């Protein structure tokens, strides 16, 4: 794949993640706990992790974080989502490498969702300088497992459809 093609595909992924993020922020969350959300942008991260390389995925995440905070967010929300996204990226990388064929997309994305919440809570504990905020963790984990499961299923369908496209099959020959 040429450099230009790759750039176009990566920017498409970033823009998809941004659209999903914006749609998600319009959906009200019925949870009492702060930080619980659908995590739709995680679909793009998982798809990119399984179709492109690891460095490309990190690039997509960082660009998405910066742009999404520009579109509608504050500095503090940028700090929370940066910690969450980096935690979730590294745990997904770790599980994907360690699990190889044993773990499917669902396990990877569930761990990603839960560690997104863990990252957020760590950042919140640093900001208010109180560890007791981690008592929210079980509730967040439950919601993270639920959303992570559906993110995994969705990414599976997305990857299946992407592989049907001729021009992309060559591109994704290194898929997991």
């Amino acid at each position, binding site marked *: 794949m040429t450099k230009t093609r790759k750039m176009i595909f990566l920017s498409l992924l970033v823009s998809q993640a941004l659209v999903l993020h914006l749609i998600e922020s319009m959906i009200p969350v019925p949870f*009492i*706990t*702060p930080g619980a959300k659908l995590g739709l942008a995680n679909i793009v991260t998982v798809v990119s992790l399984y179709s492109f390389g690891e460095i490309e995925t990190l690039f997509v995440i960082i660009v998405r974080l910066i742009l999404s905070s520009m579109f509608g967010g504050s500095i*503090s929300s940028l700090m929370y989502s940066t910690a969450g996204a980096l935690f979730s990226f590294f745990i997904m990388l770790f*599980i994907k490498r360690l*699990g190889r064929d*044993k*773990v*499917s997309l*669902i*396990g990877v994305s*569930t*761990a990603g969702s*839960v560690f997104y919440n863990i990252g957020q809570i760590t950042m*919140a504990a640093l*900001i*208010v*300088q*109180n*560890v*007791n*905020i*981690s*008592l929210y*963790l*079980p509730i*967040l*984990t*439950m919601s*993270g*497992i639920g959303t992570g499961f559906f993110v995994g299923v969705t990414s599976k369908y997305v990857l299946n459809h992407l592989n049907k496209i001729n021009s992309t099959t060559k591109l994704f020959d290194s898929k997991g």
Partner: protein
Amino acid sequence: MKKWDLIIIIALIIVSFIPETVIFINTHNKYKSFYVEIYSKGKLYKKLPLNKNAKKITFTIHNELGTNVIEIDKAKVKIIDADCPDKICVKAHAISKPGEVLICLPHKLVIKIIGEGKQETDELSY
């Protein structure tokens, strides 16, 4: 869905309860007296004794991030009003046991209950 996916999910649930257990073990002691500590932006703002027979008190905490109204009634602490956008601290339950916290993230406000003076375990021995 494979076998290892389930193992990962179960492991995640267990991990999420670690802080809960650690805090529970650290605070699950009998105390003589209880205090409520209010931290604003990481600094101790007020420390009040909690007493079952005390009168109801209401006071307002104001910093440049916003205002919260706190009510202490029958040794239970609650945030009754706040000008933050999500009002999560207002919806949260009243706290009364050591180790419990009320947090208002947008205003960097933390209210926690602590116990002081461990009760002597050998007070019945001669």
